């Protein structure tokens, strides 16, 4: 019995030694895949002032709220537009658009708006002659206000009915980006 007590004593001492161990610092992952920023630049076809819409969530999902910058479009105007995706957590900021372009057949942007007469058509193609949607042309008609929603889908069914024309309903895939801008057409 004495021996057992001795053992237990030793054990408790070992335990106290053990328990003072702090957990080592975790390695902070290099979040190279993260998309923090979407910039949608609209340049009037006939020349004029550029409009820049942006969505920035620098700390990724959760944490602080994203910062959304919006702008106003002119009625009856055509814009030639380009999307840029950035990971601004890296210095210098990493351009994710390139990655999307390289895997063009696995990605597609979709644009939709509830503003009457506002339409977006694709002006780029992937290797299968399907649109990617990094470069687009946006046309406005009447003045009005509402929203413009931009969605990026990963691995959509690009051959699905209406998908190549920009209809998301049969696309499937995972959403990588879904942002909404409140805009006015003046």
């Amino acid at each position, binding site marked *: 019995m004495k021996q057992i007590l001795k*053992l237990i004593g030793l054990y408790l001492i070992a335990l106290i030694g053990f*328990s003072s161990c702090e957990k080592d610092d975790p390695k902070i992952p290099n979040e190279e895949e993260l998309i923090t920023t979407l910039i949608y630049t609209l340049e009037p076809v006939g020349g004029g002032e550029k409009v820049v819409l942006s969505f920035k969530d620098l700390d990724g999902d959760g944490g602080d709220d*994203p910062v959304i910058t919006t702008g106003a479009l002119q009625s009856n105007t055509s814009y030639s537009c380009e999307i840029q995706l950035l990971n601004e957590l890296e210095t210098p900021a990493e351009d994710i658009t390139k990655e999307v372009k390289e895997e063009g057949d696995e990605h597609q942007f979709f644009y939709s708006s509830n503003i009457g007469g506002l339409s977006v058509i694709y002006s780029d193609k992937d290797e299968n002659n399907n649109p990617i949607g990094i470069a687009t042309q946006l046309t406005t008609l009447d003045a009005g206000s509402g929203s413009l929603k931009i969605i990026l889908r990963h691995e959509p069914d690009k051959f699905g009915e209406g998908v190549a024309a920009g209809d998301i309903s049969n696309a499937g895939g995972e959403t990588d980006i879904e942002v909404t801008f409140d805009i006015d057409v003046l």
Partner: protein
Amino acid sequence: MYYRFFLLYIILGITRTGWSQECNHFISGVVIEAQSGKKVPFASVFIEETGQGTVSNEEGAFIISHLCNTQIQLTVSYLGYQTYKDKLEVAANKDLVIKLQPINQELDGVDVSARGISASDRYTQLVSKQQISDGADKNLANMLETLTGVSALKNGGGISKPVVQGLYGNRLTILNNGIPQSGQQWGNDHSPEIDPLVANRIKVLGGVEAIQYMGNSLGTKVLIEPESLKKDKILSGQAGYYFESNGLGNGTNLQLQQSAEKYAWKINGTLKKRGDQKAANYYLTNTGVEEANVAFQLESVGGDRWNWSTYISSFNSQIGVLRGSHIGNLTDLQEALKRDEPFYTKDHFSYSIEAPRQTVNHHLGKFKSRLYVNDSAWFGFVYAIQFNKRKEYDVRKGGRSNTPAMNITQLSQYLEAIYATKVFDNWRLKSGLQFQYIDNINDAETGILPLIPDYNSFETGLFSGLKRHVSRWQIEIGGRYDYKIQNVAAISNTLPREVIRYNNHFNNVKLGLDTRYFWTSDTQLLAGINFSSRSPEVNELYSNGLHQGVGGIEEGDPALNQEKAFKGNLAMHTSAVNKLQLEVATYYQYIHNYIYLNPQDEVRLTIRGAFPVFKYEQTDAHIFGVDFTGHYHLSEKFKFSAQYSYLRGHDLTNDLPLINMPSNNLKTSFRYHQEEFVFAKNVSFEIHQQYVFKQDHLLPEQDYVSPPDAYHLIGLKLSAENALKHGSIRYYLKVENLFNVAYRDYLNRMRYFADDLGRNVVLGASVSF
């Protein structure tokens, strides 16, 4: 004298078994004390292979009927006596005289899990060796599902975890060979990393019986253990193979064992591979599974005062997750819910496993030793080490699908010292000191902030249990105290990224009292009460971020308190009515500070769109239910069985139903058995049906979609045996979901996206030699 006694029994036609199968043989005998010849009433008599058992009556006599004519291992145990074990032929043994030796070195004390039946044990809560062997195509949780009151929480066909009387995950400890399984049990999409074929025996423990094991549960535990080794000097073993039509799965298992002069060894290996499973009407693309497991056991033989055993096991699996269940955000989920057939469904079968998928490795090494101090006391020691690695792969951009999105390594060490002795007036005392160290590390290669932070924990536990058999009563009382230190190092989700530290100290207490009253030798009443407290786990405290597998943002709460639960059980087993055996168990559990993931009203805006937010919150809840099992022997050849489970979980503070509670269900089966049929032996044919009620105790706003409708499945099983020159062969044919019914199950997360499994035909054989 005994003979006359038995004759009377047989004439009266009393069947007094606790559990039975087909077949019309019986064994009978009397249990006496070796020296004095005194009768031993209420001793446990148990058949290892089938799980059938009974207790001796007031005269020390017992009979177990409905046995097949095979060789069985009979175990007779009674507190204060050495456990009796023997291999015998059923047909030749009708009047056994079993002499029990009063306690000496072999005593197991209150090591109630060791053999046979204990006070808190319910017969139905055991999956026997035969059931495991015939269910080789199933995983651990699916095997446990055959027990009344046990369900499985699933994520498709390859991932499932057991739910016992409404408890699962952090509330249900899984004991791998007596050691608390140290893995990633927090996620509903994580399966226990254990191969049941390597285990041989699975039991659900409750009450005092569970108290001697470490583990942060709310009372109930699942014990998976290998059988002890045979002491035969000849090489023996078992080789099994099965094929299943759904998923074109193949599996094989080989077990070999032999004993030498000083030690005995056993090796047990399993290989399984299955491709895409099929629902009633379409393939479930990317639902394949691959598994390779091995276990090695080495035990000392003889050893007068000292014995030891070692156990090493390795579990390795790769599991595909339905491609169409991988979603980006809330909009994606809503779209998926609208579809009949999931996105990405291919029109052909494939064995390939792509992202989303999981790879899991779990290795266990255990050393156990026991020293007999004197004739009525022993000292036990256990050391175990576990290594757990889980990698989860999501569909990712830029060729990163082969980089895990979650990569966690967990290393755990376990120490146990136990002392058992006889105290006071024949009470068996067992006390122990246990220690577990866990180190959980995320690999930064994922490029994603971890959902579960890095942590280590040190837990020390002290338990004590007393057990006594007094005439018609068996009483067990026990308690344990655990002290836990948790050191957490999390990464902030705001900028700049920095390390946030938390240090926690928890005190947990468990107390229990179980009684068993032998009303007659046919009828037993069991009653128990217990109290358990459980400290919150790391995921409940510090989860922070997007859980891709579930498509929601999960936020822990560092201020969570302990859960405290009271549970009461009342059960009755009876075979007093001719040919009928009944078991009824009722339970009620009140849980103060019940921790659950509460969906919030807010949605969180991210660049990927809106996500639902779930926060870990606490409430007061109760879970209660009734489990019913009955067998009726229509004749020697026909048997009818029924199982019914009713369960209800409710959040008392908010007056809301609890989510993820099993649906009520009713299973019945009708079995025909013939001893000899043409050239085969023990031919049995069974037709069974399962009716799962709709989970109607849930409000529409508590889920994305209302719970699936009730469903009804029919199955068949045909099995037979043949004697071989050395040993025997057993073959079986099983058909599950015979009519290929399209259905969805409430506890399967895949129900949001796809139907559950369609028809499956399993063909298997196993040779024992």
